[in-house]
C-alpha cells in the first residue's frame, strides 16, 4: 500500500516561487535586454572593466551605463546569467512586478509577453541590418534618421510597427514613473506635429 505521503511534493519557499515566476516570464521575453524598453542600463563603477571585457559598450555620462541591446542576449535568455550585471538581477518590468504582487496572473502576463514578442519580431524583420532596437525606437522622434537609414519602401511599415511596439511596451512593461516611450505628440512620420488620434468608441 502506498504511503499517504507518496505523492506529496515539497512546498516551494516564497523565494523559490518568486524565482519561478521571474524565470517563467523573463526567459520567454528578454525585451528589456533587447532594448525595447530602454536605450541603456545603469552600471556600477566596479563593473566597467568586466563590462568592457565582455564586449558591452560602456556609456560614460552623468551616470555610468551600458548600451542595449545586450550582446549576451541569446534569443530570450541571458548568456551570462550567473555573472550578469547588478542591474539585470535587480530590474523588474511592470508586468513582472504586477505578477509578483498578485495584481496580474501569470497566464495573462505570458500572453502579454507573447504579444510583445510578436510586435518586437515584426519590427526586427523590417529593421535594416546594423540598426539596433533603440535606434529603431528613435524614428518616431527623429523621422529624418529613419528616412536616411531605412529603405523608403519599408520605412512607413517600420514606422508603424515601431509605434505599435512602443505603445504596447508603454501600456504593460514600462513603469509609470519612467514615463512613456511614446509621447502622444510625436506620432507623425514628418515630425512632432499631430497627436495620436484616439478613435475610441468603447460603447458602440
Amino acid at each position, binding site marked *: 500500500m502506498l504511503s499517504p505521503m507518496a505523492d506529496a511534493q515539497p512546498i516551494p519557499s516564497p523565494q523559490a516561487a518568486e524565482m519561478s515566476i521571474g524565470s517563467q516570464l523573463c526567459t520567454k521575453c528578454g525585451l528589456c535586454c533587447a532594448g525595447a524598453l530602454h536605450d541603456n542600463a545603469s552600471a556600477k563603477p566596479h563593473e566597467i572593466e568586466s563590462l568592457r571585457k565582455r564586449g558591452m559598450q560602456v556609456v560614460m555620462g552623468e551616470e555610468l551605463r551600458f548600451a542595449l541591446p545586450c550582446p549576451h542576449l541569446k534569443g530570450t535568455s541571458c548568456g551570462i546569467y550567473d555573472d550578469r550585471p547588478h542591474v539585470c538581477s535587480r530590474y523588474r518590468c511592470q508586468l513582472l512586478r504586477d505578477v509578483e504582487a498578485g495584481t496580474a496572473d501569470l497566464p495573462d502576463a505570458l500572453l*502579454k509577453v507573447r*504579444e510583445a514578442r510578436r*510586435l518586437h519580431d*515584426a519590427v526586427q524583420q523590417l529593421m535594416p541590418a546594423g540598426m539596433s532596437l533603440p535606434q529603431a525606437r528613435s524614428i518616431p522622434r527623429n523621422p529624418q534618421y529613419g528616412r536616411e537609414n531605412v529603405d523608403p519602401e519599408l520605412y*512607413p*511599415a517600420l*514606422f*508603424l*510597427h515601431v*509605434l*505599435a511596439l512602443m*505603445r*504596447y511596451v508603454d501600456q504593460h512593461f514600462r513603469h509609470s514613473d519612467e514615463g512613456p516611450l511614446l509621447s502622444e505628440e510625436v*506620432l*507623425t*512620420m*514628418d515630425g512632432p506635429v*499631430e497627436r*495620436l*488620434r*484616439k*478613435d*475610441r*468608441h*468603447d*460603447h*458602440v
Partner: protein
Amino acid sequence: MYERAVQLLEAEVADELLALDADAGECFAFNNVAASIWGYLGEPASIDVLRDKLLDEYDVSPDQCDAELKVFLDVLIQRGLLRLKPS
C-alpha cells in the same frame, strides 16, 4: 454607401488597431469596436449593413448602436478616412 477614402497601413496591437496614413503621415489608434467597423468598410457598405454587423458582433441596443455608429462614421469622414459613395 460609405467607402474608405484612404489606404491605411495597419498593425494589430492586442485588441487595438494602429493604422498609418502614409501619404498624410498621420497615425490612428482604433479600439476593438472601431477596428471592427473599419474592417467592415473593407468593402463599401451602407449604414444599415454596418449596424447589422455590429449588432451581430456586440451586445448593444439598436438605438445606442445607431447613435454611436453615426458619430463614429462622421469622425472618420471629418478626418478624411471615409467618404460617402454616390449610390
